[in-house]
Structure formats: C-alpha cells, structure tokens
C-alpha cells in the first residue's frame, strides 16, 4: 500500500460509543476479519488502523480511529474527532444504558469535529446475544432517524453486518455533498491534531 495508493481518497472515520460495547471487536473484525474474545482488552486512548475498500466502484482508504469508551478519556479522545468525515456510533444491544447515551455521543461529535456535518451510522452490536437483547430494531431505527444517521445491527463474533456497517458509512459520506464532491473528498486528511493545540483551520496531512 505505497505509491499506488496515493491517488486513493482517504477517509477519516471514528468508532465511538460507551465502554465495552464492542468497538474494538468490530474494528478488528473489519480490518483483519478476526475475532477472539480471549484477546480483548480495553482500549486506552486511541487505536488506529487503515484499510482500502471499494464502494460503488470507487476505491477509498479508510483511516479508522478506535477510541476509548470510558467517560474520563473524552478529554483526550475528542482531539481525534477533528476532520473526521464519518463515525460509527456503537451501542450494545443487550445493555440499555449504552443505547440511552447515544444522543450524548451525537452531541460530542458535533462539538468536537471540525465539520458540522459528520456522516453517522448507529451500530447495534452483539447481535449474536439473542436472548439478552433489550433494544429492539424499531427503537434503534427511530433513534438513528431522529439524528439523521443510518442504522445497522452487527455481530463481530459472527461477522454479520460488520462490512455492511462500514459500507453504509462510506455511502453516507459519498451522499453528503458537503463532504464529497466530484468524486473526491474535500477534506483528504488523517488529521492528527495535537492535544490542546487545536487551532481553527489547521489541518495536518498524514497522507
């Protein structure tokens, strides 16, 4: 993934959501097609991976930032929100509290991302835990609709819906004229912004 990838537009996307909802599991299933409950650890700060995918006959490079879920980390992780074009907002289908917190995540994204318009998809995770499900599909979709986001349910364990979730997010980025114009992204950036050094208009290019 060297010289030939330079012409591929880079999309910065985020994985956010409460602690232990399965953000890292979705991330690993998508990037490596790998799931191992024996190796999961809490994400401290942020984790980063990159993957090239093809959506609607267009190749794009996804730079995915997986963030820590604990409330305390928000003052650190929010500095990575800047210049993100899209975000998967993840909740656990079997824990109602994680669903109730979704509006706060939307607000957080609006506050800290430089673009007011961030394409979002609400992701209900742990679909495989059939018996313990407490959030039903229509409830989830209503919440997503209200916030102008897509909605999908996934299982990192079985792999169901994971690729589709990212494809849906890329689709929504492409469908947002403010983010995507003439087949290219406006903000082509990996934008790693220094903590507490967020200056308006500053964009670091990591391509």
């Amino acid at each position: 993934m060297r010289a030939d990838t330079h012409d591929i537009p880079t999309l910065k996307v985020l994985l956010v959501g409460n602690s232990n909802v399965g953000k890292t599991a979705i991330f690993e299933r998508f990037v490596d097609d790998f799931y191992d409950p024996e190796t999961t650890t809490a994400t401290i700060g942020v984790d980063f991976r990159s993957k090239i995918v093809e959506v609607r006959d267009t190749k794009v490079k996804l730079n995915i930032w997986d963030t820590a879920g604990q409330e305390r980390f928000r003052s650190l992780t929010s500095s990575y929100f800047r210049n993100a074009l899209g975000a998967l907002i993840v909740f656990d289908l079997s824990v109602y509290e994680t669903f109730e917190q979704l509006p706060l995540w939307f607000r957080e994204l609006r506050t800290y991302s430089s673009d007011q318009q961030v394409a979002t998809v609400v992701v209900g995770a742990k679909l495989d835990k059939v018996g313990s499900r407490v959030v039903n599909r229509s409830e989830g979709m209503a919440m997503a609709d209200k916030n102008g986001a897509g909605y999908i349910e996934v299982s990192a364990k079985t792999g169901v819906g994971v690729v589709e979730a990212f494809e849906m997010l890329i689709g929504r980025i492409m469908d947002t004229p403010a983010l995507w114009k003439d087949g290219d992204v406006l903000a082509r950036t990996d934008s790693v912004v220094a903590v507490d050094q967020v200056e308006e208009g500053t964009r670091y290019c990591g391509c």
Partner: protein
Amino acid sequence: MDEPRSDSVQDASLRVRSAYSQPDSGALEDWQDLDLAHIDRCGPPNLHLTPGTASTRTAFSSPGSHPPAKHSAPSSGQQWQSSPTQTQAPPTFPSQNPPKYLPLPCICLLLLTHRTFKGIPDCWRASAWHAFLSASASASAHNRKSDAELACLYKVYIATPSIYDVQIDLDVPRTVQGHVLFRHRYSGGQRLLFQVLHSISLMFPHIGYVQGMASLVATLLCYYNEESAFIMLVRMFQERHLDRLYEPGFTSLKSIFEDFNSKLSTRKLGKILNSLGIHPSIYLTTWYLTLFNYSVPFHTQLRMWDIFMLLDDPDSLLQATSLALLHSLKHQLVNADFERAMDLLSKRVLIENDDVLMRRVKIELNAIESESIRRKFAIRFDRLRES
C-alpha cells in the same frame, strides 16, 4: 455524562460486589483444576515469595517469545542476597510482620542503580520493589501510612461501595485474559483484581478508577497478594506520583506529552514523526497509562518497572524509556509512511534484547539529568550575573 443516579449506583455497586464476594480462598481455586507440573506459571500470589518460588512468568498473555531474562552475572541472585537493601535474607514478604528494610544509603545507590539496570532477579523482585517504595515512603516529607495501616484501610474499603464498580467490572474480565490467574469469571485472580481496583478508587477518590490501572494491578498480582498489591499501588501513586497521570481532564498527562514533544522535536526521528502528523499523545497515552504493559513483552515491562520502582524521578524515567523504545523502532520508522508508522507505534514493540534496551534507557536518562543540571546551573549563573 455517565454520572448515574446515586440510588442506582448503590444498587449496581452492590450487585457487582456480591458477584465477586466469594469465600476468601486467596485465589487458590485457580489452581485446583490444574496440573501444576505441566504449566509454566507464576506463583500463586498468596504464597510467600522466597527466592525460587516464582518461576518465569511466561503464562502472561503477551504475544511473542519469552526468552528468560538475561542477567549478566551468573550469580546475580547471590549478589542481591548481599545487596545493601536487605538486612536479612531471604525475605518472606508479605507476612504479618513485614521484614524491616534499611533506608537506602546514598553511598550504595550507585551500585544499586547499576545492578537494578541489569535486572532484578525474578525471585527478588517482589522484595526489592517493596523495599524501594517503602524507603521512599519513610523518607517522604508527607506523613505516609504504614503497611499495616494501609492493610486495615483495605479491609474497610472492601466493604464500602464505589461509584466505579460497574466500570471496573466491565474491564476485569478483559484484563490479561490469557493468564492462568485471570481466566475464571468473578473468582480467583479476577476477584483480586476487582477488589484491589475497587479499593484504589476509594483510596484516591479524586481520581477514582481509570482504564489502564487494571494492567498495573494485574502485574502486581503476579508478585503480591491482594493487600500487598493494594499497598504497592498506593505507594506507586504517592511515591512515584503516578496518580497525576490519571487526574480528571488529564491536564498533567497533556503537559507531560508536550514536554516530550518538544524534546522529541529536536531529533531527526521527531521531525519525521511530526512531518507525518503523529503527535506523541497518540502512542504515549497507552504507554504511560498502562506503564508499558500494553506496549512491550512482559519480561521487558518488568525490567522497566525495576528502574521505575527504584528511582524517584518518574517524569524523566518515563521520558527516557519512551525515547529508548522509539530508538528501538527508529530504523523502521524513518522509512515508514503514516499508516505503517501508526501501526508500529500502536502495536506491542517486540524487544529482542532487554539489556540493549535498558542500556539505551540509561543513556537517555543520563542525558536528561545532565540537561536539567545544566539548566539549573545556567539559571543560577544568570542570577549571579544579574546581582
């Protein structure tokens, strides 16, 4: 944002704590279904740690190979037996009456530092770490609690609810899962891990529980029983000022990152990382908050901790260790693009030779110290000139 109502917090705390409150068996249930002859393990944490009890800790879940720690002197165990820190040998820590340790005399500190950089023999680690931190605590200007007082406090905390119980419960089952000690849900090592973290969140209410602490406690539980692990973490927070790293808002951590950034920016590698747009906060957050538990193999982490326990200058040491770690990745990083560099920095760094890394830490540490001495003299000199 997630400050739930207090009654539901009480209920949740009670629910979580009752799940962990099994009859106290000192985590021996972890060992009952194992054929001990066939596993490479760390000693059960409630056993007295005498030299030879705790064998290599290769069951710890860190990927990569685990070469046995190399100690340059074949008799380093004996060296440590005659080490100036010990008044008696072998120590049986922890016990009802912990052995007394002499405050470290200055004249021996150089030798002690030299030996610690070469790696504390694993059988002496628990005693040495405890001796180092106890020496700092008794020399502290603040009125520090004794081990016995902290052990009493620990018992009180176990019976007290904490608002962090639910979060701790989420993280306990996903802490060093591959390790034999932590594999049973709600029992064994997981119970100890929960109780120590719970007590720490009450001991330092202004900090509470922050993800990353679990890695520290898990490491300590490989060497100490639950009370001693609690005492050790309290000492690490107080004597090595680790508590600052976890402060709400992470203000100290952010300023530590900025210091590191300005230091790194003067180097070629720093310029390269800057041009890629990679700020140190991205990788240092994990490195610092787990004290390198996520970032290097376990045997390397222990070597780093040896020095961290000994020296009372955590900021310089964290900086020196991180610079040494970056140095070991230097050849790969100089030619890397953004994605490759991020990949290298966020994965566990496989260290081929711990001794080489530790020598580098020493070099970096000496450079930082002479720099700060130079700066102090420069300030004094300026003042003299002005007067």
